[in-house]
């Protein structure tokens, strides 16, 4: 029987949705509470019930009657107040702030890596990974950096054991990929790298790099410039200029440092670019034949280029962040800005 009562209540709720005028509400009141109304019909069922259930059911119907009266009276009040604006006791404030859900954020370094990945994905580069704890061979010898060579001075390194170290560059991944895959190769390898630099505003003993490598037949220095130019224009903006300077990396030849025109001052010179109008963003070059030799590639047949960039550096440039340590303090007031 109580199912029946529930049904009545549900029907009423549906019907209240149709109330527009005071008249609608009054009619609904008659339908449910009038002398020949639905509630009275329910009352008429009582005598038919077993004696022990009569009292309880009667009580339930009475209770329902009160509920229905309340609901309908509420509607009558509402439609009449809309029709005749009287003194408002309560005013809905449409200007109150919304209940905002918290917005989470990816770490700014992840955002930069994602952006870099996206640009290079459009150029057909796949993302690959390599170990952070590496054999010395992959970090040095295979990359044409022999031991006791002065170029090692540029690569101070954390060691675990004699021949095991924390990679000081993501170039290690180049070798691992080329060892198990034949050309054509088109990869980028993002990841953490480690160097025992004393921590200050510009140095961190751990930072992130993205390494890139393209090997195929007929790849030239002009292609390297073309690909990097695509990246720079897409990532930093179409009006940004690129400049290459000769440099030295043991694993590339010819080697270049790549600068972009300073976006802060537009090339006129400011403190960010040390008043040169240019900021260095990555190192690049044609893969040295000795590297190909280490992975048993035919250096006459294949040529290729590699490049590497510091994720922190690019992020700092992009947002004007002056202290690298902020990335690892993870202060919510910092992270929430990106």
């Amino acid at each position, binding site marked *: 029987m109580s199912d029946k009562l529930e049904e009545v209540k549900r029907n009423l709720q549906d019907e209240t949705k149709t109330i527009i005028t005071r008249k609608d509400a009054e009619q609904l009141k008659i339908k449910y509470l009038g002398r020949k109304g639905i509630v009275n019909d329910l009352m008429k069922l009582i005598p038919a019930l077993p004696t022990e259930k009569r009292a309880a059911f009667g009580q339930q119907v009475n209770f329902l009657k009160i509920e229905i009266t309340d609901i309908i009276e509420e509607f009558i009040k509402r439609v009449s107040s809309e029709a005749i604006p009287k003194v408002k006791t309560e005013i809905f404030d449409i200007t109150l702030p919304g209940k905002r859900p*918290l*917005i*989470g*954020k*990816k*770490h700014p370094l*992840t955002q930069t890596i994602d952006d870099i990945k996206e640009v290079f*994905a*459009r*150029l*057909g580069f*796949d*993302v690959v*990974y390599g170990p*952070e*704890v*590496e054999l010395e061979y992959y970090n040095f010898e295979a990359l044409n950096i022999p031991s006791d*060579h*002065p*170029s090692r*001075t*540029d690569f101070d390194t*954390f*060691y*675990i*054991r004699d021949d*095991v170290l*924390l990679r000081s560059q993501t170039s290690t991944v180049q070798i691992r990929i080329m060892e198990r895959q034949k050309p*054509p190769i088109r990869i980028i390898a993002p990841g953490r790298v*480690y160097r*025992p630099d004393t*921590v200050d505003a510009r140095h961190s*003993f*751990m930072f992130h790099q993205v390494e890139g490598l393209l090997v195929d037949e*007929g790849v*030239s*220095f*002009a*292609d390297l*410039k*073309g*690909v990097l130019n*695509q990246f720079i224009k897409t990532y930093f903006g179409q009006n940004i200029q690129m400049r*290459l*300077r*000769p*440099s*030295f990396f043991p694993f590339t030849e*010819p*080697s*270049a*440092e790549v600068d972009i025109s300073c976006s802060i001052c537009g090339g006129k010179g400011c403190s960010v670019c040390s008043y040169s109008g240019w900021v260095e963003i990555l190192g690049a070059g044609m893969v040295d*034949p000795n590297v190909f030799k280490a992975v048993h590639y035919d250096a006459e047949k294949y*040529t290729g280029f590699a490049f590497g960039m510091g994720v922190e550096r690019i992020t700092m440039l992009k947002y004007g962040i002056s202290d690298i340590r902020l990335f*690892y*303090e*993870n*202060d*919510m007031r910092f*992270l929430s800005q990106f």
Partner: protein
Amino acid sequence: MKISYNWLKEYVDICLSPQELADRLTNVGLVVADIQPVEDDFCLDIEVTSNRPDCLGIIGVAREVAAAVGGSLHFPETNVVSAHADIFKFINVSVEEPILCPRYTAKVVRHITVAPSPEWMQKRLTCIGLRPVNNIVDVTNYVMMETGQPLHAFDLDRLAEQKIIVRKARIGEEIVAINGARRALFHDMLVIADGRRPVAIAGVMGGAETEVSNSTRNIFLECAEFEQRQVRRTSRALGISSDSSYRFERGIDPEGIDHASQRAVWLINDCAGGEISGGTINISERHETRKITLRMERLHKVLGVEIKRDVAIDILKKLQCNILNNVDKFIDLEVPSFRGDISREIDLIEEVARIYGYNNIPTKTSIDVRGSTKNKVEIVEDTIRQFLIGLGFYEVKTFSIVDTSPLQSVNLWSDKGGIDIANPLRQEESRLRTSLLPSLINTKRYNMHHGTEQIKIFEIAKVYLAGNKLPHEKNCLSILADTDYLTLKGIFESSLVNLGILSECEWITFSEPRLFRDERAARIQMDGMTVGYFGEASQELGFKTLSCLLEVDLDVLIEKSNFIKKYQNLPQYPTVYRDLAVIVNEETPWSSIEKCITDTKIAFLKEVNFFDVYRGKQIPAGKKSIAFNLCFQSPDRTLRSEEVDIELQAIVDSLQRILNVELRKT
């Protein structure tokens, strides 16, 4: 390397301002990091890459300037005044290690007057940051800065037995270097010794006992070549580096030794008088000239631009290469002795490109179009990141190298210890982490101290577990959230659904008091494998909030994730819902109830959903009431109420039989 602008102009004719000169040098790879005015001169600080030791002398820089800008070169005077005596009367030189010392030359100058060097020389040395000492030392420094060839002057009268021996150090020998450092020497180090003891560490630094002083009358001037790696090893082993070792490590010009020696003697004679002994002691290994062929086709192929043969030859000539042939397709040439870095065709290609100008090479790509697909690691990491930041989480990045405190030593994944760094930056931060959670806890504390009380953070990074040759680097996802237990657990469960992982998780009692609150932590198991650890943060951690911690093996999630989707027909017949509440012992976990129900093998039961646990007045002590909802559905018809009632009764029966539950009346 610091150079003086005026000094440079002595060797090459240029009419460029220091700034213009700096720009031109930068374009050929000699980056000028700084220009400082010094009186009427300028000091240019040039970054010389380790492959270009020839530019560690001002003449070398002058050669680059001439190649890049043009302008003729002038080399300094070396006319030596003729001799009065025979050098062999004063000293006997022998080289026991010809491989480590391929060339050793010496001169003797007698009856000199040690005094301050002339003002012009002092001024130039001061301009590039060298402290003037006396005319002899200053001349050796001056010539080194000019030519890039280190020299060393000994006080001839202090050399025992009139002997110089280039040999390995002997066990027990030690030396006090000119800078005052006393060092024990080892057998693998090369020294310059007199008849009794080492008087210099070959190529690194001279000894204090035989250095030139104000009372010195006669000098022995060494000008030699020492093997690069030997010098580097010794310098590093002793912790002594000098302008000399810096140059020897990178390699000096073997053909420049005689010139430097003569130049120094000439200047000494000019500044300190004295008599130059006739002859040169010259112990030498022969150097071969390097001949290389550059193929024009290869040049074109590597650079992607056709550089005319004339242009290439012109560049190579400017770089002092000796062109040997005149055939169309090749250039055969001889490389000058000071360019030890050029030994292959590719080195020549770089040289041509460098002087031709990197910025004159076109920017074009002829590479073909190729598609790239995201790998599963990226997809899973992206999916998790997007899911969590959508729920208001912040991603953090913390250091992989951590301290060795008890908290950081937590190792959930392995019985073995962490991996230590042999040469840490700071002794207290020397270990590769075995869990991300301690770093997240520290991040929470950092933010607490900076006014952020509530945080929800996660990190995706590696932990480093002891392995064989290389450690096992496990990708982990760790979360610290200021939520209650069930909220974070639910987030984790939903994230599994989001990754398409269908395997069920088992939650097994776990204890790690450094991280988790007692009795509120679990090891999470999936298909019999541990995938993670979860629990309420230990109260010992001192948080002011209720926080939960989770660390999951991301590699397993990557492996189990499944993004292949297949459409399932929508159910055509209605679902019937029934609620049930049972009173059980406190010890009975929900998982047993759920298992008991699913084990009952009910034909139309689709889902069991927990919704409430209640302890209170109507429930006896030591018991709890658990309420849940059951969904029944048939794929091919509408279920009748009686059918569902029968199934419900079967469920109640097995719950009563197996778990001894009591039905709670509603």
